[in-house]
């Protein structure tokens, strides 16, 4: 009974899509330092498809793993699918999270949602 599943540890140890997209067209940041978790998502969306995604996270092992897994789950996916991503799906893809760590998967979902909102906002601003 390790604290985390092998999947979580793999994504924590070798996080996918770490970093910054300088020319991202959707950026979202959620959480706060007070609670010990901040997640920032950078999206590069083209033709309603997530062409690239990167993240930066300040947080615990499951926060980092959730960010990493979430980025993998949305990379290359159409926005319609990305919008459906739930925290449960992220947690499941990680082979589960301890109960009191489920909020990390929630943050990942919210970070993506927040980046999508930013993208929509920018788009509507550009269009107007």
């Amino acid at each position, binding site marked *: 009974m390790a604290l985390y599943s092998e999947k979580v540890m793999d994504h924590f140890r070798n996080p996918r899509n770490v970093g910054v997209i300088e020319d991202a067209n959707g950026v979202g940041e959620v959480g706060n330092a*007070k*609670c010990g978790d*901040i997640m920032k998502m950078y999206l590069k969306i083209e033709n309603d498809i997530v062409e690239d995604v990167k993240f930066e*996270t*300040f*947080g*615990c092992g499951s926060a980092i793993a959730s960010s990493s897994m979430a980025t993998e789950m949305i990379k290359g996916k159409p926005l319609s699918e990305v919008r459906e991503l739930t925290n449960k799906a992220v947690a499941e893809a990680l082979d589960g999270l301890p109960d009191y*760590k489920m909020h990390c998967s929630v943050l990942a979902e919210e970070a993506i949602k927040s980046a999508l909102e930013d993208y929509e906002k920018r788009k509507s601003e550009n269009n107007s």
Partner: protein
Amino acid sequence: MIYADNAATTKMSDAAIDAMTDCMRNTYGNPSSLYEVGQRAKEVLEDARDEIIKAIGADNFREIIFTSGGSEADNQALRTAAEIGRAAGKMHIISSAFEHHAILHTLNKLEKEGFEVTYLDVHEDGLVRSEEVEAAIRPDTCLVTIMYANNEIGTIQPIREIGAICRAKGVLFHTDAVQAIGHIPVNVKDDNIDMLSASAHKFHGPKGTGFLYVRKGIKISNLIEGGAQERGKRAGTENVPGIRATAVALKDAIAHMEENDKIIRAKRDRLIAGLKEIPHSAINGDENKRLPGNVNFCFEGIEGESLLLLLDDKGIQASSGSACTSGSLDPSHVLLAIGRVHDVAHGSLRLSIDETISDEDVEYIINAVKEVVTYLRSFSPIWRDLVAGKKEFIL
């Protein structure tokens, strides 16, 4: 593997394990039984009590009650003082903001029962001021309870001065000495201590045993009612093997305290010096008035749990006051009590070493922590903002 979490628990010494195993095999009797195996168990029990008495400078076998650990001892000490206070109409208790939860949660319970508790500030250096203890004492104060050394940041409190003040004012004084016993000299007489809690697994003894010292003449209240063990003050068949191993471990710890202190202190200071080189870091608690083996730092821009997990991958076992390690949202109440803001308190690391650590281990730890902190900062959105000047550095 480098075990650097001796404040959480220690590895039992071989001598303690052997004493315990021998006792389990050969002295299995119940000390309350009058036949030979029983009386032999009783002898082992009372010999252990004698050792403990000597080890803490007490002088009467009636002053030691064996418990299941530090938490039980803390609970019983506070319950004892509360009953005495209640009987005398004195319902005020003085403590500090960074006591162990065994103290704080019991105090909360007493508050619900009508007691008023003053939680003294522990200041930035992690030290209670004895003048502030004195100033807080009121005519209705029944107890002062201040820990001997803090379990997270290792700061050693001015126990002797506080004890003298309490003695002069006629107020009961309890100290949770769980982190101190076996590591630094403790003498209940010189330190004017009325009650003291200890836990064996913090000094290379077994888990599940500890003791409470209560000065002669103080009426002890039971936490566990039942049989007449421990002169009726703590029921339950005595854990004779555990108690024997406790005495063996404590005797050993005290016999080697001076030499070990020198070794450990040197390594601790090297660790502190090494970690200080990490930019935007800070040591928690006074640098000198701390346990010989305790190192505690905050590193800005990172979170403690991920730091620990990566150190674990490198074979280093340490601890953190991070909220994430405890399943709560708030970081360590100890770090908050010494004034660390939440953002920074989440990024803490405690290394608590013993004498078995080598110089190579120390250098290895320093390098590993540097590496991991740098790595975690490399993708920390907070660190990015700090470096970009969007946020101000705290440390």
